[in-house]
């Protein structure tokens, strides 16, 4: 795939053009100093110097709550789908988060497509910004999701000393480069070399958190993890569900109806497999009544070979958000460590 160079003084010009072409979602700093992926309206709003965003990209493709159907229950029942479609460019988002979207693609695509997710996904373009320095909770190197990627993005941007190196990863990314050729020049070999140097240096900046994914995958796949591991994790976990909501690849949802006027709407909401009521049936029978059973099911779905096979890869991208969000010690890093030790 092609690589281009965008001089520093032309970055804002290109971002300005993107803003005129589509809704642009980019890292944006709020008053507290935290960074969220949010719609931006001017190039100056993009927080190029951020490390990680508080939330992943999931909510832009799978909103926390969305209306899927509208129905009227008057004389004759009428049901209509509610689909949202608009062009969106995700700019300067992290590679772990782009990888998270790729996992969601496998879950919501496939033989039976989820039309709500796919309508948004088809009109989304992902321009990632490679990380030069890991944040303290990061372990994307363990998750095979960064800090630099070889593919999976539409474009990957790397901030070099004099400007951006732009690597193209898809037809969509190429079309975008083609449309703005006047701002770009083909990348020079020394610019590519500079990127490789930065990538190498970035890998040396990881902190104390890691994830023993290979060990966990083997033991989960073969059901070799002793029950005590899950019981111990259950002692720590407070079942807040925070890890699932912050996770770029957790995508469980539930569906409810809400009455409105002489009809109503059917909505879907994020759900969490850690909640006691998650699998409970109307009869009261709960196949995962024990907290430890729910933790085992969650990590099996995340990391087992069986599910990795189905989704094309395991479902941890090493963004570290569960580490930040966990009120206890039951996040991915802690769990894989516990599984490894048995």
């Amino acid at each position: 795939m092609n690589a281009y160079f965008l001089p520093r003084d032309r970055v804002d010009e290109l971002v300005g053009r993107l803003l005129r072409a589509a809704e642009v979602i980019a890292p944006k700093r709020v008053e507290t100093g935290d960074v969220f992926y949010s719609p931006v309206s001017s190039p100056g709003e993009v927080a190029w110097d951020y490390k990680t965003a508080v939330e992943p990209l999931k909510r832009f493709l799978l909103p926390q709550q969305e209306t899927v159907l509208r129905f009227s229950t008057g004389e004759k029942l009428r049901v209509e789908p509610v689909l949202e479609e608009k062009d969106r460019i995700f700019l300067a988002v992290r590679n772990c988060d782009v990888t998270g979207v790729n996992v969601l693609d496998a879950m919501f695509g496939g033989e039976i497509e989820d039309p709500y997710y796919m309508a948004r996904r088809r009109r989304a373009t992902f321009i990632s910004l490679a990380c030069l320095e890991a944040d303290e909770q990061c372990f994307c190197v363990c998750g095979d999701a960064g800090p630099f990627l070889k593919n999976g993005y539409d474009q990957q941007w790397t901030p070099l000393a004099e400007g951006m190196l732009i690597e193209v990863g898809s037809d969509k990314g190429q079309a975008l480069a083609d449309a703005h050729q006047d701002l770009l020049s083909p990348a020079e070999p020394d610019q590519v070399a500079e990127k490789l140097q930065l990538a190498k240096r970035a890998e040396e900046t990881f902190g104390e958190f890691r994830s023993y994914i290979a060990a966990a995958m083997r033991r989960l796949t073969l059901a070799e993890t002793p029950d005590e591991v899950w019981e111990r994790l259950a002692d720590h976990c407070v079942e807040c569900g925070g890890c699932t909501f912050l996770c770029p690849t957790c995508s469980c949802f539930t569906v409810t109806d809400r009455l409105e006027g002489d009809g109503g709407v059917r909505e879907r909401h994020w759900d969490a497999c850690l909640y006691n009521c998650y699998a409970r049936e109307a009869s009261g029978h709960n196949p995962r009544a024990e907290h430890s059973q729910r933790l085992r099911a969650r990590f099996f779905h995340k990391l087992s070979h069986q599910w990795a096979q189905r989704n094309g890869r395991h479902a941890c991208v090493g963004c570290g958000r569960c580490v930040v969000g966990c009120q206890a010690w039951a996040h991915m890093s802690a769990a894989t460590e516990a599984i490894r030790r048995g």
Partner: protein
Amino acid sequence: MSNPYLPDIATIQRVKPETYDTTSFTLKFDDPGVWERFRFRPGQFVEISVFGAGEAPFCISSSAHGREDFDITVRRLGRVTQALHAMGEGAQVGVRGPLGNSFPLDEVAGKHVLFVGGGLGLAPLRPQILEVYRQRDKFQSITVLYGARTPDDLIYRDELEQWQNLEGMRCLLTVDVGGDGWTGNVGVVGSLLSEVKFDVGQAVVFVCGPPIMIRFVVRDLVAMGFGEDDIISTLERHMRCGIGKCNHCIHGDKYICLDGPVFTYRQMKAMMELEP
């Protein structure tokens, strides 16, 4: 792009109380064109919408042959089933499906066919019983063993009576607790297995009922010599979407809604090893 979450509208044609808390509903699509696409196989399920109350999964309980409507048999338990029980003939519901896999039929031709049902577990077996009986020339014998808690819990009472007098089918009933007027067998459904006289090496068994009943019956069947691939059951979970997206029905490495609901005992054992 077709929308797998968009239900087709159907109207309730018939409401038939089965027991004090269980009722069968006959549903027919308002748009007759839907039926051509719908044509289900025994073992498949549907997601039924009672708009305003929500959506829930139900197995189809009627014959897959010779009809242009279908039945579901519903126990009044949760929000959706209570709303459904309050509906009468002419009321409209939403239907998504047919969903999931189905019972093997051609694959088990030439065998003795045994059905073991407990309580409402007879409902998913009924389309298969009717289909096997319709094609009875292809099978060595057909036996239906059905048990419920009390005589008042037996569903399809009129049909059971008919089945007991049919040529080419053996149908035995039992209840856990008898009562006035019950002259039949008393005991759990597994106690009827002693009536099975055919060569289990040439047989296939379809089992459905409450989880505890399945567990004991399957244990007995294995002891009798049934092969792990010849014991076939249908599982239920809290299936929200029915198409492998919401993840609620995951058991081990399977989606009950997509990979099932029909599984062999060999498959169920592998799932139980991953997620006991």
